[in-house]
């Protein structure tokens, strides 16, 4: 059992537990830090939100994450902040004060999670906009309030913060100086450096965790008893850089980092639309690009976007040898992928720029935010003089794998993006999908939805030229 050294709130701490144990179980079971609560144990409610601080070039960067999906092995050398580590010694911080002034807390079970997420917002937002604050709690569920009182508190909070903080200077020290965050946020970088916590080299045969946002749900008890390796310890997997005509996105890049990358957004603008619809802030702060693909869910949002973007994967064998495979060839069948034992997805390579290309992304789920898609899809078309010269259509949720719908795409090429072409493509799509009945919807619904999503893509990509009424 590895010894894990970390900074826990204002003190160094040592964990003697298997690396795969969840931080939530450790905090509640071993530390009596019960302000972090178990609501669902699968990252769906936010009652266990904590801040994870990682030292980098600009100081310690904090992200709000779900403790139930965070293996304690990830804590080595990092700063873990719980609600107890955000409480001022006396009184309330501005987040807490705004919520209390509004009379927002009811049963209170979920509220420490809201406070932690909103403190994450104070640490991360450029301009303290209400939009940023609302986005920061997209992974926090409250069953009592209907959120209205929380929104009123956010208005007060944001109004009170604007003008108080220099947006350019490092944030945490300013919040400490303003009396908003406790002192341990100011000296965390130095204390982390002094921890001498770098874990020993990992044995190659241990399970490799990306964000763990799926693995800890699927294999909680087995993981809690064993050791693990972490992608986050590989700096070479966490970069986004241009290489020739391709943008190379490291497999360990998180969804938050990906969708905030101007280079990635320039290459694949659909990532900007997908971002807020992918999991929640708590999930995106942990989930990785490679993890999302290797999980091989047929309804993975990112897989659909990357398929449409003509991505290829760079795969690294245990010895370091590398090979490339087109993403559309990577998915072999339901939860089967072209990846041998010991291999990892090192990077995703997407074209830097395709002339005249435009993207559309659509996702339909029962709940718009923090839900798994019923059908998800992305279309990339190249339009020259009003004629489609190239099209790549990806659809999730209608086949055992994220599907590259070649037939539908082919039906669009060589024609203007008009109602006749869209209908022909929808008919072609109908012939190449095989949805099933499940808890996300009936096969008939998914079939109809796939067709309608294709039409929605066309309305996005041919604004003005096409009307919804022509398609229905």
């Amino acid at each position, binding site marked *: 059992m590895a010894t894990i050294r970390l900074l826990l709130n204002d003190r160094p701490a040592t964990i003697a537990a298997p690396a795969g144990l969840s931080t939530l179980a450790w905090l*509640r079971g071993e530390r009596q830090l*019960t*302000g972090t*609560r178990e*609501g*669902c144990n*699968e990252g*769906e*409610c936010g*009652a266990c939100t904590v801040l994870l601080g990682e030292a980098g070039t600009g100081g310690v960067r904090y992200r709000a994450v779900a403790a139930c999906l965070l293996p304690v092995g990830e804590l080595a050398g990092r700063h873990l902040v*719980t609600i107890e580590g955000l*409480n001022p010694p006396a009184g*309330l911080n501005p987040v*807490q004060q705004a*919520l*209390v002034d*509004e*009379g*927002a*807390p*009811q*049963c*209170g*079970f*979920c*509220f*420490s999670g809201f*406070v932690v997420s909103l403190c994450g917002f104070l640490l991360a937002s450029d301009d303290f906009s209400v939009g940023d604050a*609302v986005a920061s709690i*997209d992974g926090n*569920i*409250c*069953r*009592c*309030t*209907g*959120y*209205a*009182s929380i*929104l009123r508190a956010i208005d007060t909070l944001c109004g009170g913060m604007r003008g108080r903080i220099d947006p350019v200077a490092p944030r945490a020290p300013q919040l400490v100086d303003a009396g908003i965050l406790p002192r341990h946020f100011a000296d965390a970088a130095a204390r982390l450096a002094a921890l001498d916590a770098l874990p020993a080299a990992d044995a190659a045969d241990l399970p490799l965790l990306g964000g763990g946002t799926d693995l800890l749900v699927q294999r909680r*008890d087995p993981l809690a008893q064993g050791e693990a390796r972490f992608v986050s310890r590989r700096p070479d997997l966490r970069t986004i850089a241009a290489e020739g005509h391709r943008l190379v996105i490291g497999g360990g890049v998180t969804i938050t980092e990906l969708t905030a990358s101007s280079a990635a957004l320039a290459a694949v603008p659909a990532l900007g639309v997908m971002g807020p619809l992918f999991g929640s802030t708590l999930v995106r702060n942990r989930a990785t690009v490679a993890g999302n693909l290797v999980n091989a869910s047929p309804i993975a949002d990112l897989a659909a976007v990357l398929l449409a973007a003509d991505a290829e994967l760079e795969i690294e064998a245990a010895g370091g040898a590398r090979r490339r495979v087109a993403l559309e060839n990577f998915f072999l069948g339901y939860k089967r992928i072209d990846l041998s034992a010991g291999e990892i997805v090192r990077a995703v390579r997407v074209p830097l720029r395709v002339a005249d290309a435009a993207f559309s992304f*659509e996702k*339909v789920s*029962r*709940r718009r*935010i923090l839900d798994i898609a019923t059908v998800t899809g992305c279309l990339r078309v190249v339009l020259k003089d009003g004629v489609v010269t190239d099209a790549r259509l990806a659809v999730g949720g209608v086949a055992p794998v994220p599907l590259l719908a070649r037939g539908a795409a082919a039906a669009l090429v060589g024609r203007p993006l008009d109602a006749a072409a869209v209908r022909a493509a929808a008919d072609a799509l109908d012939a190449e999908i095989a949805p099933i009945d499940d808890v996300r*919807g009936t096969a*008939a*619904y998914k079939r*109809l939805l796939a067709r*309608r*999503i294709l*039409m*929605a893509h066309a*309305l996005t990509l041919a604004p003005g030229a096409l*009307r*919804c*009424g022509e*398609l*229905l």
Partner: protein
Amino acid sequence: MKSDDRILHVRGESVFVDDLPAPAGCLEAAVLGSPVAHGRIVRLDVTQALAVEGVAAVLTAADIPGENQTGTIILDEPALADGAVHCVGQPVAVVLADSATVARRARKLIELEIEALPAVLDPREAAALGHHIIPPRTFACGDVDGAWAACAHVVSGRADSGGQEHFYLETQAALAVPAENGTLLVHSATQAPTAVQRVVARVLGLPMHAVQVDVRRLGGGFGGKEEQATPWAVLAALGAQATGRPVRLVLDRADDMVMTGKRHPYASDWTLGLDADGRVLAWEVVYYQDAGATADLSTAILERTLFHSTGSYFVPHVRATAHCCRTNVFPNTAFRGFGGPQAMFVIETALAAAAHELGVPARDLQRKNLLSEGATFPYGQAAEDCRAARCWDAADRAFGFAALAAAAEAHNRSDDRFARGVAVMPVCFGISFTNTALNQAGALVHVYQDGSVGVSTGAVEMGQGVARKIRRVAARTLGVPEARVHVETANTARVANTSPTAASTGADLNGEAARLACLQVAERLRQVAARELDCAADALTLHDGGIHRDGAPTPLGWDALVNKAYWTRTDLSAHAHYATPRLGFDRASEKGTPFAYHVYGTAVTEVTLDRLLGTYRLDAVRLVHDAAASLDRATDLGQVEGALAQGLGWMLMEELAWSADGRLLTDTAGKYKVPDLDFMPRTLEVRFLEDPNPRAVMGSKAVGEPPFMYGIGAFLALADALRAARPDLPGPTTAPLTPERTLMHLAAPSAPETTP
């Protein structure tokens, strides 16, 4: 000491059952539920599970020393299955181990063989088979059979509403601690401390005084911990008795979803008759309630459905029949509204269908038929201090129903993709337990020597702010600042024989009992003060932390008065009991006065529907709610907003699904979705009707349940948008109206032309 729970909550310092430090030697429990919906237990062998290191005991029905029975209204529910199972998730055995992980691992090693029997999952099918929990009940008034002939329009149809998972953030939890002489202290996350005490005593073979139940607070209840917190407290207590060690039993989310009941799904058939002016003359409805495998509270919930069959409307001729159908799903249970929402959904669906057929706006029919002062409900009670029209008209003046509808229609003429819908939803909800005997409460007040005050009642704080309201009542009655008053846990050793905190009555009953107890102490203190000030007690009032004489302050302060009272040997404690007056209901005639009063309100809802994808957005909910003289405005506003959110979820998003063999498919938080912030209406405006209510504590009204039913307005508004998009089709009649249902409706083939 912090004066308000809210401060503890935002600091993460409030303590729930699972946050209590584990007592030394504490065991944790995992419960094995039946994997089969209906069957006979052929073999149950716990040997392997018992052999796992760290396992202290594995208990089955054979280990129960008392009665194996947890039912309340009907005694039909074993604590642990004995011989047969009737639903998936029914507790069969409980494993006690050093940790929950070990307990869960050992649970997998229990050998359970079940010979499967046919399972019934549909309430109509159950009714057809005669699987009733009680015989069908009918509420009737007027002459419904004779009335049809006088009707210019007769419309009929179906309306089905789905179940709803409570999704309280704190799952079911209990911690049982053995004490000397076979007694037990049970910390339970329950809305019904006395029920837990009674059933623990019954199952363990103890007198009730040997079982002390203590409840600090719940992380949400919503009805889900009224009846169904009991089994988990019982199993923890059983384990503590068997092992002599403390036992903590906390269901994880997946177990909680499978092993607890939900809001009852209902299927209904209805016929509505109107005269040529659109006045409703006759209403006939048959409800098929999916009760699940045992009675639980289903019969009481069924009764409330019958009480609310006519919604906010006066109907002279009514016959409403309700079937309590036994199926092989987990017993369904109380959930905010308690059968009322299911009834109101049906009559609103019927009125919308009638309006469509008559070619008039639904709101015209709704307004025309609203209850008025003195109107008689089908169960014989008259609407007194009726506020139905007051709320409707206030909402109409404030929000302009016709203008909102006209704006939607104008939009729909010009937009070929997004259709808007608007609907008005009036609410009328009866307040009191419909089981008259439950409308009683006790309170115990201590004024301590330092002038601080402790108040105990049977009210369980679960976020609804009942502790805050009781504190306010006590502070006002004693004339002290609220900071001097502490509301204690609900504890069966301090206040006994309590009713569940339910039916929106928590503050009404317990607040009034607390007021009566405070009045006793206040009267004694006035007598002491009269001696001190040498005047008549009649001239004295307790006010503003001191004693006022003829309305003016005297030098005698509260602390000095309390101190004087103690040293002159005055009783500074009081117990009081309150029973709601006037109530009575005769089940033979199905007539009486079941309710102390009614709560009213009106909401108007706007939605936008994407005709292409079937997705939709809630644009606005604006409402006027009959809060009367609120005991705490922020609390009541939070109750209205939160109840609305749950109602919206029930009507639109939250959907339960079972496999053909009775397994719950929506068994995780990932598969069952409740409203998040993004789902909520972009605009939410709540106004209060503040006319004081003479029939509850300090002029207030109960608030917990009524606003839930504003959520039905979202179904009606979305149905309005669907009618705009597909005027050729009848409106939807099945809730929840998920994006799947809306898209399938939008894409449905045209109804064949029917000849009139």
